[in-house]
């Protein structure tokens, strides 16, 4: 994983998330997907599907269980992308 790659992923995640979250939340790599953003689980699942298509990967549900922050999601995506 190059840093560049990671930064791009974080940027894309922040962009997508800000379109779902309320306007006053500033989304960064440290943002907690569940506690900081009040997005319901269905919207979050749909967002994951969009992200999967954007990177042409499938994110296993069990791997998602360990993800809390934007940073952790970005690392997971980078890991899956580099393995495929």
């Amino acid at each position, binding site marked *: 994983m190059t840093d560049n790659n990671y930064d791009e992923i974080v940027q894309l995640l922040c962009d997508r998330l800000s379109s779902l979250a309320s306007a006053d939340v500033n989304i960064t790599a440290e943002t907690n997907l569940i506690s900081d953003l009040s997005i*319901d*689980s*269905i919207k979050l699942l749909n967002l994951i*599907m969009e992200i999967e*298509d954007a990177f*042409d*990967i*499938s*994110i*296993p*549900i*069990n*791997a998602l269980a360990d993800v809390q922050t934007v940073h952790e999601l970005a690392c997971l995506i980078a890991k899956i992308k580099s393995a*495929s």
Partner: protein
Amino acid sequence: MNLLEKLDAAAAARKAMLPEGVGAFGIPIEEVYSATEARIGERRVLLLGTNNYLGLTFAPECIEAAHKALDEEGTGTTGSRMANGSYYGHRALEREFADFYDCCSGIVFTTGYQANLGTISGLVGRGDTVLIDGDSHASIFDGCILSGAEIIRFKHNDMADMEKRLRRLGGRAETTLIIVEGIYSMLGDQAPLPEIVELKNKYNCTLLLDEAHSLGVLGETGQGLVEKTGLLKEVDFITGTFSKSLCSIGGFCVSNHPQLDQLRYVSHPYIFTASPSPATIASTRAALQLLRNGSDLRKQLWKNCTQLYTRLKETGYILGPEPGPVIAAILDSPKQALQIWHRLLENNIYVNLILPPAAPDGKSLVRCSVNAAHTTEQIAHVGETFAKLYHEVLQP
């Protein structure tokens, strides 16, 4: 928050959704009169929320067989299939299931839930992949979790999404188990099996089909979706339950791969639980014979399904995409669903209420299950009542 406080928080969230005093879940059935009628509280209700698809809960053949087994073999086996719990009846039922599906191997489990847990966790493990439908039953999902395999979901019945995910798997497709259901329990729609088989062959995966709701319901002899589509030989493993059209409890897996038998030695949900009681096995064996020869029951069942589906659709209800024994009215809010459910009960009709997150896409469902024992008049009465409530609750 300590452990008990977490439960309190969950209870508070549940109560916020369900007003005090509404016991929609786990409602006590005080007396059962027949395959279609029971007493709830002081009401004699029409049962339209059971999985008794062929209406065999009181079939004399099954009751007689169960009585005989009870008298001759006692109330329970008190042990695992691997130890003292494999009686003649368990092995005979396994042979009968294998024969029914023209397969070489069959295994009987203690419940359908365990059949999925035991089969999935026996077939795949760490490093393997399961590709499951987004609307999969919890027993499939839990089986996948137990297995340790990577779980990937595709959009419900969406073949383009499924293929996309198979392609993304690359070389890992070979160690991938695809899992789908004959009839989905939430909306009553069927899996597009011909397309799924095509993809399974193209990507060289293994396919498991859960016929829980389609056994006894689809196909000339009631094998399920495999028979309706003529694809029996293309499906690697079939699981199912005794708890719906067979009217007892238990589950099974059949396969034409002799390797299925190996599951008996590795599958914890098969080994570390007691086997079904002799009476359960005896009534299931009798019911399987009735099911195989039950084409008249299936005709009646489908007549009833079409009658209710058409009536509800004409009224304006939003339903699942095709008629079947599971007919779900899809409602926007839990409040609407609860109101309709409640008013149906006041009109002496019992159906199932399904609220988020159990229902797909955040919707709420009022779900009917039709069976072969319902009369045309009973179905017409249910249709009338739904129509009346549509105007009273949804379009006041």
